[in-house]
């Protein structure tokens, strides 16, 4: 009998499929994983501490650096928390509310296309990656035209949004929305419907309903496991109660479901934007807020449906211009805790797919 030995493999921090600077130490028996230890923190910038040294307004641009794939929604979560703290949630002008919805759904499309792209790349389908990036770029072009920057838009403001958009912008948006279903069909044809792809991802990394709740999944990951919960529909923030949309659900919570749920969600986002464009009123885009923001003493926790899950901010105010404590509840950070549990016993190739399927962005994991 030959003596065999476990192989310890350091995957990351520089590795093609850890989506940034995530490191996990894998113990391998052949190519099967016996133990996983996560190591995060390579991108830690101390944003929570930085927030304590910035005024409420000044912290808005930093949110784009959290989850750099969905900057708009991070900013939205932050400003909504501050608005809640100040008690001006009801005073946001209509047009600003609609713009917020349009922008965040546009950003959701951009973020989910990046998910499709990176997922496709992680199973070595480079062409799917390029097709998804083609569409993401168009969404980002629109965000750039509205805010001036592609990824860190700094567009949301406490009490409204930074800038208005014109008719030309809307016509471009309409063009994107018209083309989007065809693009999504293309992803379905090239990636989802591919038998090799299905063989790779079906029944891999199964997270059951109970397990998903236990390990703190949220958003699309949770819905892929069959939990029918969407903050936009169930606890509507902003004006989401005015739109009609379906909440796509997965069946068994494997990587395939997590992928398909996101593609379906993009279709719903297109749907929401179409409704919003139709109804958007003219009017001001900023509420009357004092120039120096001084929320009353107290605290607020607000959660929105980010593209990765529930992004929440817990802000404690001591009545001064700077927050006393800002806590960022990041979906990726919590979701990443599932990797050591699920990856155990998997093949190395499956582990890569499993990691890719929960859509982590290291900027948000490490903050």
């Amino acid at each position: 009998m030959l003596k065999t030995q476990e192989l310890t493999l350091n995957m990351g921090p520089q590795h093609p499929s850890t989506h940034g600077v995530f490191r996990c130490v894998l113990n391998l028996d052949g190519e099967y994983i016996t133990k996983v230890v996560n190591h995060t923190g390579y991108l830690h910038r101390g944003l929570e501490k930085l927030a304590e040294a910035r005024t409420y307004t000044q912290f808005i641009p930093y949110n784009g650096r959290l989850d750099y794939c969905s900057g708009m929604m991070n900013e939205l979560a932050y400003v909504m928390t501050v608005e809640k703290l100040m008690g001006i949630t009801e005073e946001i002008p209509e047009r600003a509310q609609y713009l917020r919805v349009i922008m965040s759904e546009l950003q959701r499309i951009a973020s989910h296309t990046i998910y499709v792209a990176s997922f496709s790349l992680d199973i070595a389908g480079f062409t799917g990656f390029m097709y998804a990036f083609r569409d993401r770029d168009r969404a980002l072009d629109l965000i750039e035209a509205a805010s001036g920057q592609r990824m860190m838009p700094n567009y949301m403001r406490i009490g409204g949004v930074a800038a208005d958009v014109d008719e030309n912008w809307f016509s471009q948006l309409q063009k994107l929305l018209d083309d989007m279903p065809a693009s999504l069909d293309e992803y379905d044809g090239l990636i989802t419907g591919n038998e090799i792809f299905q063989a790779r991802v079906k029944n891999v990394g199964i997270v059951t309903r109970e397990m998903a709740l236990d390990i703190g999944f949220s958003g699309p990951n949770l819905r892929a496991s069959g939990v029918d919960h969407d903050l936009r529909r169930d606890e509507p923030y902003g004006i989401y109660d005015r739109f009609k949309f379906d909440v796509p659900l997965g069946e068994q919570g494997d990587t395939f479901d997590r992928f398909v749920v996101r593609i379906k969600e993009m279709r719903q986002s297109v749907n929401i934007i179409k409704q919003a464009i139709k109804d958007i009123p003219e009017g001001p885009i900023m509420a009357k807020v004092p120039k120096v923001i001084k929320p009353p003493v107290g605290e607020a926790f607000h959660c929105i449906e980010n593209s990765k899950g529930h992004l929440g901010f817990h802000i404690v105010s001591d009545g001064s211009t700077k927050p006393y404590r800002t806590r960022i509840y990041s979906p990726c950070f919590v979701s990443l805790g599932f990797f050591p549990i699920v990856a155990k016993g998997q093949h190395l190739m499956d582990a890569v797919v499993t990691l890719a399927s929960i859509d982590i962005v290291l900027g948000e994991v490490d903050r």
Partner: protein
Amino acid sequence: MFGQGLIKGLGITFGHLFEKKITQQYPEERPVLPERFKGSFSLRVPKCIACGLCSNACPNNVIKIESEKDENNKKKLTGYKMMAERCLYCGFCVEACPTKALLWNHNFERAKFFREDVNLDLFNSYVPSPEDEKPAKPEKEEETAKPEKEEETAQAS
């Protein structure tokens, strides 16, 4: 039937084979930038009243303003430095500027060989233009912030 998806995928890629390319030949083909694009900063020095609002609005202490009082006890700008290496490009300074002296421009090719070269000295690199010589009238400081209007007019001028 097994293989249908594979053939469909092959069809999709073949369909794109002769399609128009979507990438840009960058140095020859210049990108079309939107009006609000945040590239770099330019300062219309005669309009600046050295009030320091931009520096206050900055989250990262990027802007260093030097000024001196002239004979009328009026502030006069003598230096305006931007430590662009730690700039977030958030644009709060441009929004805060009451006289529209600080503006965005579309110069995005900012890569430099040395780190220090990235920093901007807007006061010394200012090229006078006749339009800027109009008397600078500080707007009344409004109680409510309306940055969107400021930005639009700023870009129009």
